[in-house]
């Protein structure tokens, strides 16, 4: 167990290192100027700005400096687009928001998706199956930027206690998390359905049924765990993605989360912010994958021994 964890951590660190290296050179290859603003920047100013942010140095020096700052000082650098703000500050401000929103949507997604998937599998090719899958997929077949405004107008406006958008009241989390949860729910429903169908055709379930074990017991005791394996494999990376925010949902519901940094960071050529995000995301992804692997080992005795 411990060996798996340690080797996974080492792997993650290597992956993150390679990613940051790749991103470091790639973002600088994108045409565009991080310092372009609505008033013209003179060549002298441009040079001064580049010198201030160390962008005038040869690439390999910049690269070495970047790692030195991170490893020695824990400093991800200053944001180039949002002057005077550190990348670490931006992450520290926005991540808790996205985490909170992401966890609730994951929770909702799991609560909706897995039951729907199980229903669909149990009633394979009957109307219940079709209905469950239509519901599960509605969320991904209607794009978030249509779903969001529809929710705003049809749910938030009539309800006094629910705001259209913002991040001030505790209730503000509801609509964005519902909008976000559909994607998760749809995938989970699908994976659970597939997993369940597969498990239900296995010999041990059939023999259990032949022995007259109650249906409910078959499902909860025997079928559920292995049927959830694909869902859990998916949940690892999905977890990392969803707790780092979504641009569309944040933009529509005015959520001060991380998602918009991904888009604004790269469209405004904010090298430091993009690198910081890649680094952070890569580490989260590593942790999430590790968690899902551990969960799989816990779920499946066969894996536990190997």
């Amino acid at each position, binding site marked *: 167990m411990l060996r798996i964890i340690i080797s996974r951590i080492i792997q993650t660190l290597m992956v993150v290192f390679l990613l940051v290296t790749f991103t470091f050179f790639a973002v600088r290859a994108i045409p565009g100027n991080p310092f372009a603003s609505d*008033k013209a920047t003179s060549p002298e100013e441009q040079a001064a700005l580049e010198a201030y942010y160390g962008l005038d140095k040869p690439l390999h020096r910049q690269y070495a400096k970047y790692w030195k700052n991170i490893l020695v000082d824990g400093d991800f650098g200053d944001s180039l687009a949002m002057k005077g703000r550190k990348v670490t500050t931006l992450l520290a401000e926005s991540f808790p928001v996205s985490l909170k929103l992401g966890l609730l949507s994951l929770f909702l997604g799991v609560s909706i998706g897995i039951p729907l998937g199980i229903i669909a599998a*149990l009633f*394979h090719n009957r109307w219940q199956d079709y209905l469950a899958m239509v519901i599960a997929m509605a969320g991904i077949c209607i794009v978030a930027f249509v779903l969001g405004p529809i929710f*705003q107008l049809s749910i938030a406006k009539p309800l006094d206690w629910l705001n259209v958008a913002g991040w001030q*009241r505790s209730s503000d*989390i509801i609509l964005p998390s519902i909008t976000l949860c559909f994607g998760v729910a749809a995938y989970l429903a699908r994976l659970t359905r597939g997993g369940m169908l597969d498990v*239900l055709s296995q010999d041990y379930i059939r023999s259990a049924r032949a022995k007259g074990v109650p249906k409910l017991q078959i499902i909860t005791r025997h079928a559920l765990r292995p049927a959830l394996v694909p869902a859990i494999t998916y949940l690892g990376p999905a977890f990392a993605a969803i707790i780092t925010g979504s641009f569309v949902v944040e933009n529509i519901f005015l959520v001060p989360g991380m998602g918009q940094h991904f888009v604004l960071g790269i469209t405004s050529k904010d090298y430091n912010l993009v690198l910081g995000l890649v680094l952070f995301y890569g580490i989260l992804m590593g942790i999430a994958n590790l968690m899902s692997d551990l969960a799989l080992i816990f779920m499946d005795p066969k894996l536990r021994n190997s």
Partner: protein
Amino acid sequence: MRKEGEKFIPIGLNLSEFIFVTKLNTLLAFASLALASCESRSDIEVANEKNILVIGNSNEPKGLDPHLVSGVLESNIIRALFEGLVVDHPSMDSTSVDGVAIRDQIQHSDDFTEWTFPLNPEAKWSDGHPVTAHDFVFSYQRLLSPDPNWPAKYAEMLYFLKNGEAYHRNKYGQLLCSTDPDFPLEWDRLKNANFDGDDKIVPSKYLGKDYSSLNERERQRFLKYLNDSETPDFEVLNQKNFDYQEASIANQKIFFNSIGLDHLDKEQLVFLRENLKLLDWSEHVSPEIQQLVVDRLISHHELGKPNLWNQAKVGVEAINDHTLKITLRGPTPFLLEITKHYTWYPVPKHVVLKHGEMNTAYSSPWTRLENIVSNGAFKLKTWRTNHLLEVERNPHYWDAKNVKLDGIRYMPINNYYTETRMFGDDQLHLTYTVPSELIPMAKRKYSDQLRQESYVGTRFLRVNTLNEPFNNPKVRRAFALAIDQEAICEKILQGGQKPASGIVPPFGDYVVPGLIHFDPEQAKALLKESGYESTSSFPDIDLLTTNSDSGLREAEALQAMWQKHLGIKVRIQQREWTTYLQKQYDSDYDIVVAGWIGDYLDPTTFLEMWVSGGGNNNTGWSSKVFEDLLRKAEHTADIPTRMGILSEAEKTMMKDTPVLPIYWYTTNYLMRPEVKNWHPLLLNNHPFKFVELQKN
């Protein structure tokens, strides 16, 4: 893979059995939702009770340092936090009330060049320190800092000050010679010597060309500096190890004149001292004076190029703690209008210096939430990135008892559809805008709350006059006349925008020359005259725009209009904001959709940017006649005469059509009825100290 022939039997399970499985999950989900619902009053009801104005403010502010920002949304916040010499009247344009200075005691010389501002001794920073004339002097010195590390975007707002431009642009030739009373030649006669350098003859611009291959116009630029027999050799000039000491006379002349006195280094100056004739000194400058100038420059270099603030005598002076004297470069009857722009606001000297140097830029540590001190009606309370920014009452404000609001909350809502919906759900007092798609609905549903007001701003297209086909004024004009401006305003925008006949919108005493009107017939004729007879031989043209929806809709309409009226197919190029800007600065475009909002109520705010080398010109267009007219206006105190000259200048420009005007902006926004003392203002710079929330 499953084995063949096996039949799959689904296990039936009825719903009640199934609910058991999911009961726990569902319960938990509902519990968390129920917990969330406690407040049933709307945001506005809560805000009204707290006496806080909640407004949509478009986006996250880039900063709060009045010297470093350049956007409208930042100015909305800065106007609440800081206060200039005078403050806008809440309902009358071009009218001022007391600010830090006492309005009725402001004095000016008859020609409007010298102004004395008595400051209110009660004016205080939010930490209790008095606001003094020294704060103003410090601020203006700071904004004008010539340091290339100082990223002030709006320093040219202080070019109205005497010597302001020379100090900011580090023209030390001028500073060393013109401000010295003992200097034997007055500056007006010396100033035509080549101090600036001539960027039209920079050798690297002629890469790969031979002097003999230049056309007449290009050659004229060089001949200004050369004798008839001399010819420069570009190949030599462009060599990396070009050695001016060993070069031919012609090459030396081009080299020195392309750089200019102010930009020569010490070694070059020493060489020039021995060969004064290499530089274009223009007339009336005797060799003795030439030598004196070069000597001064050399000694300046020897002193390590010290900051020349003390010598520059920029037109701002603290007579005493509470009297500020301002001297201008020329008659400026509208000075008070200009001082309402945030670049003229004071910054707290004691706080700026406590948290860094005068020019500690990029991060402006003094503007952080925990450090910032301001002198306006409000002070900063909360600032969370992409979330909200809130200001609260400043207890030390000199007129605190007349400030009505207890605070303002600025919401960075960049999705304007969401913003309108939030207004409909009682979450905002004021919106930043109403997207044009929603205007019909707003007219119907919020007819009392929808405001559509005149605004000093113009939507136009910049044209790259350096490249084919737009180096031909007839083509530019043809494109301008083929724009059905009215259709854009009335069919697409529906926000009360007016078709623009020129670059300066009509306001005050200014008479618009009105040269551009939709005229497809004349457009066609002009295109024919231009020599591009067959439209298929027309060069590829890209129309650059941002990736905003409104920009796209206009671009698509323009594309269709040119296709219809001129038969020319233009390709739309959507780029995100920074690339869009960069392409303009690099002149890497054909036509670009742009907009300009006036900074102050005077036509020059729309005209100054089209001078040659202006940071926002980007069209490659320039005109000596135009610039001369602007300089003439600068020295004219009589208002009607001055406006006439400016109108003439615009006429000169629009005849050449380096920009294609589309429409004059209006502001469209929604405002709740309880907001009082908020009246239409042309610049939309509403003074927050007067705004009131009516109690029911």
